[in-house]
């Protein structure tokens, strides 16, 4: 049996819940809620306006809109719980990587709370959120080898888009006006590269089924962009911070990469990797709200949690092997 599996899954020694049970328990609820919020609120209620017979479905649409707002509130509550659990779990480790990630996640939490209470302004929020994400990307990527590439690309994309937002906000505060349009192009290109290279995070050759799933999703998205680019692009801009600067097939490849990585992770039983990927790419690179930035922070922190847990398990394996040999 894999020791990694033992360390990541709930303890089976007693019927009482232990601290190791809490991470899968909370994330097992958070990730479906986040996906439901994306599907109902951010996608359905904003595309249903194009249904030709919507006037006959007005009641249904209204119910879906209320449900969408509820899924947002539910996902936000669970996200706060998930971030809190990760801070505690990471802070318990002696591993410097884990403690750095715990500190960055905690700083993000304090920043989001202070921004909500309007104790700090948008410029300060953007700088602190960008810094937390940079520290988490650096922490999550270190020691990962080639599988760090998608994380580094994602981090660079996030920071490029954040720099653009910051430039606008500084101008609003009376600073100089900077033409940051190139930062948006750069950020979007890096985000697409991060998504396309996402299977590297799993580090295993994807199964044929995963490739089929990914290809189908990629063709669907590229086809939708070619067929009705306006609607799809406004949705990608609102939801993921991607304005649709590049040719449609590239977006199909990016979606295919993410889907392949998630399906591969699930088929390997590595649901933590799958959850982290979902959170990272649903949060995406657009600085829309502290909720979406929180998804990115949760995804990156979960990657750090995984890395540290696997390293500890590997150390334990070596110790056991040495003891057996002795």
């Amino acid at each position, binding site marked *: 049996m894999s020791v990694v599996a033992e360390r990541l899954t709930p303890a089976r020694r007693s019927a009482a819940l232990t601290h190791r049970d809490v991470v899968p328990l909370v994330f097992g609820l958070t990730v479906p809620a986040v996906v439901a919020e994306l599907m109902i609120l951010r996608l359905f209620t904003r595309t249903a306006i194009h249904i030709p017979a919507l006037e006959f479905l007005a009641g249904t649409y209204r119910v879906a809109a209320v449900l969408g707002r509820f899924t947002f509130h539910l996902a936000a509550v669970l996200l706060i719980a998930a971030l809190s659990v990760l801070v505690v779990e990471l802070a318990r480790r002696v591993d410097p990587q884990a403690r750095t990630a715990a500190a960055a996640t905690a700083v993000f939490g304090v920043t989001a709370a202070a921004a909500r209470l309007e104790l700090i302004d948008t410029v300060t929020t953007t700088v602190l959120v960008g*810094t937390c994400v940079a520290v988490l990307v650096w922490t999550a990527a270190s020691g990962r080898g080639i599988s760090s590439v998608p994380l580094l690309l994602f981090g660079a994309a996030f920071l490029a888009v954040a720099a653009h937002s910051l430039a606008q906000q500084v101008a609003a505060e009376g*600073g100089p006006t900077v033409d940051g349009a190139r930062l948006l192009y750069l950020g979007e290109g890096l985000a697409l590269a991060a998504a396309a290279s996402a299977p590297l995070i799993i580090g295993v050759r994807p199964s044929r089924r995963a490739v089929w799933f990914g290809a189908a999703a990629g063709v669907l998205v590229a086809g939708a962009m070619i067929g009705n680019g306006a609607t799809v692009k406004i949705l990608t801009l609102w939801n993921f911070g991607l304005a649709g600067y590049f040719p449609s097939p590239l977006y199909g490849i990016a979606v295919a990469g993410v889907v392949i990585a998630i399906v591969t992770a699930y088929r390997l039983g590595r649901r933590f990797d799958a959850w982290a990927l979902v959170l990272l790419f649903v949060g995406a690179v657009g600085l829309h709200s502290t909720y979406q930035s929180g998804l990115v922070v949760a995804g990156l922190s979960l990657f750090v949690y995984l890395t540290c847990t696997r390293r500890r398990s590997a150390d334990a394996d070596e110790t056991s092997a040495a003891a057996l040999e002795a």
Partner: protein
Amino acid sequence: MGRTGGDTMTSHSDVDVSSVAGTRNLLTRRVGMVLVLAAAVVAAATLQILDANPATSQTTGISALRTEADLGLDPGDGAWDRVPETELPLTAQQTSYPFGGGSVTAVTVQALHDDESLYLRVTWPDSTSDVGTGAPEAFSDAVAVQFPSVAAATVPAVCMGQASSGVNIWQWRADSDAGPPDTMDEIRPNTVVDVPETANEDYPARVVGNPFDAEDAGAVQNLLAEGFGTIGPAEDQAVAGHGEHDDQGWTVVLRRELSSTAGGEPSFRMGEATDMAFAVWDGANEERNGLKSVSAFATLALSNDTVPGAGSGWIIPLVAVMLAAVVIAIARGGMRRSS
């Protein structure tokens, strides 16, 4: 494909789910999951009922600074000179037919308040002043600002809102501001008019309640919407505005009292932020209705601060960068100590 390295327990041979301990453990975890979910559902329902959003918008922020100046609707009032400007990029409306617009690429927004009213000054480049709509082929320049119906609530869809999350739109039109032409000759020279202009009943648009044709219609229409095709006039038309055109383009000032008791119209309170988006129509480009240039949402917040002196705008970014440096230093220090 094998499942080696996975983090689920289902594939491991040493998991005896039929054992008493395993069953109790599974039960305990399921009870835990149900309890966490129940607590989250209650918390989410409370937030929904209170219309409270735990997250904060990270979009471009616009501060409505306090002024003690006796501010009117004059776009050239000197009180605006040192108010910070925010440039919001615009794009062509590409969400609902008819697609179009895009001729204006940005608006510059300033905001002030005097504890009683909110003032917005919007500036955009436009080489032509299109103020007449008397002819079928003539279209007016216009600008609109859109707020969620409940300030600081969940952000609605930026294009006209959505069900359960409506928007309040203030639309200033150059033709309304200019007023109707005095004579038909101004629109169609040498036209003979043989219809007597007498009572209101002779104006069908006025009779059916078209706010544009109302006798007391001002330059700004106060509108409500909950999605495409649902826009209509608000009960009270409490928004005032005035615009002036020069060789650079239009400058328009909009004003409304901070508080509102009318349904679907937000109240602006100190310490609360709300989202705000803009749309611009260029009449010379035949833009009207959905043919317009639109912005994404920005965030408007009322501030107790007064208009800053020259150069003070750098303080906040400087403090923010210093805070970031402190975070990085703490993280590096933590890693060194742990190592």
